[in-house]
């Protein structure tokens, strides 16, 4: 049985089963249950359990107990201190009943103070080869962060500051520098001493501004007591000394081993991995995390990092053991899980909750900005990214996304400003120049973009993104030798996919020049090379598609159809779940070749897929417009094509619409559509190849028919120049040359 037919409704199953679903949503959901076998079977299987959740009072009581805050830990000094506090208040009330004044509670503001746990020095073995000090410090941070009332600077953040500022020493001056940079008002410094197998932890809570020791703590380990248990006890002491609100006493305080690891060795390896990860030493980081999970397979955050830097599928293990991660870390795991499930909205929501509680997590802020940008919420992206930069102005990653976010709002000044900042921070990296090239292209500044891309490949000659962009820009400018050099560089890449892409790009050059026979040869060579390398990907399918386009232009429909079929087979074999890819182009070609049934069937499937994914229907409007056009329903075709280009620069639709307008004698409209389209840069132009060149001819002919002779001459000449080396039998080329002669008076 396949999955739910409508996931949006499928997600409401549990809400319905438990009676939580609002009454107004009931009908829609129950009709869905009637129609969706998958959800219906799940509901039937779960019905008994659902009835208990809905009706059983004992289950209700058990749930209520879980939902209530847990009582505080018994027999702790916290209880004793609270009793003393209450007693003190009572004494005051009894002694001075008429002179009471109520002042704002200090406890209410204490939780806004941030605490930095700086270091724990191993007094017994100052070299601390087992990193006991780091282990205790990290465990203490994790344990304190479980509270909603303690704002503790993360270990990650402290490491970033220490690395950036070179603060490796464990002296008071360094400690203060770290705490100040982290924005902490209080810091904790401690010592570890081990004598006769008894471990003693001591801590000092210090006011950062004055250096005064506010409180001190001491915990002496019992025989057999683990480091984790000692940290649990120290946490209780520290929390008591932080003067937290009374509500904090009612919080559940899990054992730190339950939200990290029960193995000291595993946890030490994990810390090693974290340190290497923060310095971008990927190999060492993988080693550290792998050693950690060898010792403790339930160390969720070790799996989380391995999923990011080694194998994405390892995220499953992090999710499986998520209850063994701290409160902060659970947000990160759930967010990444949502990203892997393709639910960026949910990923965003998780991180929004994370940063609301842990506002100094710069990586969370950066990712949040990135997800918002991908979701098209550029303004939110800018807000989050700026916050990340405020925390650390030398954090370069946000500047890249910030530039794109500003570009998304057409605020190019700020986009360029942001990317230039990135370049200043990383002048030896190709990526910022590449990004700047893209932003210039978004503004239509082709020459500025070229310059920026050239700078990128000067730093890294094989930087694929820039090489590709340069090839396409040179093709647009008709600098074919330079374009060929870039595409050949791609065919020499170390990556198969880029080599395959380079081979199809090489085919665009002769297509653009009207050298169709040469283009077929280049594409056949590319297909052969793909086969030799065992490559079958999107670019392989694209080679067959381009061949089909050329063969159709050469008046060979059967051969064109055969190539299209190969293209389609490859595409669906490799990408069975692809929503659009170039299926709309395929529909157009099929319609043009008279294969209406197939074209309509694919167009309908495309529409259904787009609707299911709640995506724009522009590709469908184009596909359907192409079908209507091929069937001679011009009015309907025009309606669909206009919809396709209404809020996107859909180049295939633009070309087809301009052709329709020309054929209907609506020349001024054709000119109005084609002129801006042909002047501006568009990545589509290289892919359209033949149609792009023909669009020049259409524009020339439209201007000609409109009586704009001088402009028509210029455009005809441009078209003839583009196809000057074209195959002799090209009809439009012959017509353009003849017409030029007439318009210039060369031919009577």
């Amino acid at each position, binding site marked *: 049985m396949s999955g739910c037919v409508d996931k949006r409704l499928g997600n409401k199953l549990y809400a319905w*089963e438990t009676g939580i679903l609002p009454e107004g949503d009931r009908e829609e959901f129950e009709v869905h249950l*009637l*129609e969706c076998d998958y959800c219906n079977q799940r509901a039937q299987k779960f019905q008994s359990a659902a009835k208990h959740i809905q009706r059983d009072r*004992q*289950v209700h009581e058990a749930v209520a107990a879980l939902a209530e805050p847990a009582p505080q830990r018994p027999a702790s000094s916290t209880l004793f201190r609270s009793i003393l506090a209450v007693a003190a208040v009572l004494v005051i009330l009894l002694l001075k009943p008429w002179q009471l004044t109520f002042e704002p509670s200090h406890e209410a503001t204490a939780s806004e103070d941030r605490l930095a746990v700086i270091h724990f020095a191993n007094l017994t073995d100052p070299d601390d080869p087992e990193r006991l000090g780091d282990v205790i410090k990290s465990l203490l941070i994790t344990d304190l962060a479980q509270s909603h009332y303690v704002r503790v600077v993360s270990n990650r953040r402290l490491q970033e500051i220490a690395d950036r500022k070179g603060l490796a020493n464990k002296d008071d001056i360094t400690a203060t520098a770290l705490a100040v940079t982290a924005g902490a008002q209080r810091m904790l410094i401690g010592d570890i001493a081990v004598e006769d197998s008894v471990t003693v932890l001591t801590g000092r809570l210090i006011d950062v501004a004055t250096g005064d020791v506010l409180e001190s703590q001491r915990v002496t380990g019992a025989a057999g007591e683990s480091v984790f248990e000692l940290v649990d006890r120290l946490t209780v002491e520290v929390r008591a000394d932080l003067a937290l609100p009374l509500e904090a006493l009612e919080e559940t305080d899990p054992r730190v081993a339950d939200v990290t690891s029960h193995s000291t060795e595993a946890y030490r390896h994990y810390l090693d991995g974290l340190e290497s990860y923060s310095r971008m030493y990927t190999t060492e980081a993988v080693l550290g995390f792998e050693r950690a999970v060898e010792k403790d397979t339930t160390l969720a955050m070790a799996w989380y990092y391995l999923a990011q830097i080694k194998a994405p599928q390892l995220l499953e293990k992090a999710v499986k053991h998520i209850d063994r991660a701290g409160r902060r870390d659970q947000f990160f795991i759930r967010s990444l899980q949502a990203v892997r499930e393709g639910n960026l909205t949910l990923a965003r929501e998780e991180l929004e909750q994370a940063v609301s509680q842990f506002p100094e997590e710069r990586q969370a802020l950066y990712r949040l900005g990135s997800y918002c940008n991908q979701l098209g919420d550029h303004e939110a992206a800018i807000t989050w990214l700026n916050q990340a930069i405020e925390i650390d102005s030398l954090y370069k990653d946000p500047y890249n996304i910030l530039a794109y976010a500003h570009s998304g709002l057409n605020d190019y000044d700020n986009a360029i400003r942001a990317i230039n900042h990135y370049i200043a921070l990383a002048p030896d990296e190709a990526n910022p120049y590449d990004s700047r090239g893209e932003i210039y292209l978004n503004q239509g500044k082709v020459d500025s973009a070229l310059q920026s891309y050239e700078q990128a490949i000067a730093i890294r000659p094989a930087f694929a993104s820039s090489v590709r962009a340069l090839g396409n820009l040179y093709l647009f400018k008709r600098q074919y030798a330079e374009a060929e050099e870039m595409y050949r560089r791609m065919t020499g890449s170390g990556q198969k996919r880029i080599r395959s892409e380079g081979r199809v790009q090489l085919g665009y050059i002769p297509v653009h020049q009207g050298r169709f026979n040469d283009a077929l040869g280049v594409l056949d060579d590319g297909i052969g090379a793909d086969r030799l390398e065992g490559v079958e990907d999107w670019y392989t399918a694209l080679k067959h598609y381009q061949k089909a386009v050329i063969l159709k232009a050469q008046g060979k429909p059967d051969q064109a159809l055969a190539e299209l079929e190969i293209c389609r087979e490859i595409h669906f074999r490799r990408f069975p779940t692809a929503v659009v890819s170039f299926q709309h182009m395929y529909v157009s070609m099929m319609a043009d070749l008279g294969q209406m049934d197939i074209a309509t069937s694919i167009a309908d499937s495309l529409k259904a897929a787009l609707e299911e994914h709640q995506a724009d229907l522009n590709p469908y409007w184009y596909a359907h417009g192409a079908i209507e056009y091929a069937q001679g329903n011009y009015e309907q075709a025009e309606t669909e094509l206009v919809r396709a280009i209404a809020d996107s620069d859909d180049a295939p639709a633009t070309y087809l619409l301009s052709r329709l307008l020309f054929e209907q004698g609506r020349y001024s409209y054709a000119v109005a559509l084609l002129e801006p389209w042909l002047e501006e840069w568009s990545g589509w132009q290289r892919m359209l190849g033949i149609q792009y060149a023909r669009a020049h001819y259409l524009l020339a002919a439209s201007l000609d028919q409109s009586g704009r002779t001088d402009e028509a001459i210029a455009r005809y000449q441009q078209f003839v120049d583009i196809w000057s080396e074209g195959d002799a039998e090209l009809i439009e080329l012959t017509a353009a040359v003849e017409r030029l002669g007439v318009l210039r008076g060369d031919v009577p």
Partner: protein
Amino acid sequence: MNINEFYNIAREGDRAAESSLFRQLTVSFRLFAQQRIWNDQDAEEVVQEAVLTISERYRDITFETSFSAWAYRVLNHKILDYIKRKGRRQKLIEQVRQETDTELTWQPDPDLRARLIECFQKMNGSNPRHARILNLHYQGFTTGEICSRLKLTDNYFYVMLSRARTALEVCLEEEDTKQ
């Protein structure tokens, strides 16, 4: 094959399809009716009335939407009629809750109850909001109020519940295996 597909074939006179259609319909209707009518015998009566009405009329009716939507509305009207007939002073949209144990025909299964509670306890470590949401619901808060209290969006609320359900299913199956 889904219910609308069975309907299309049954309408042409296919007896086997008709039988499958009404079997599926009855099973689904029981799910819906028992959600709102906690007396299983009364729920079954309402289901049978609805199925009978549908079997008498389905061949002759032209639907504006679909067979499934029409059939659902037939059942919904029967449930609302039942609620009115019971003469209780409740809003039509409220569930019909049995107020005395003597009216209950459903009896809890102690074993399933124990396993459920154990699973809730296990889940609470990684998803404490699940228990809070259920508890707020038991106290009468609406979905909107719950989302507002817990600062959750609609989207996240349902996804979170969906994940909790999956975790609960897995936990119950593991407990089942251990039995």
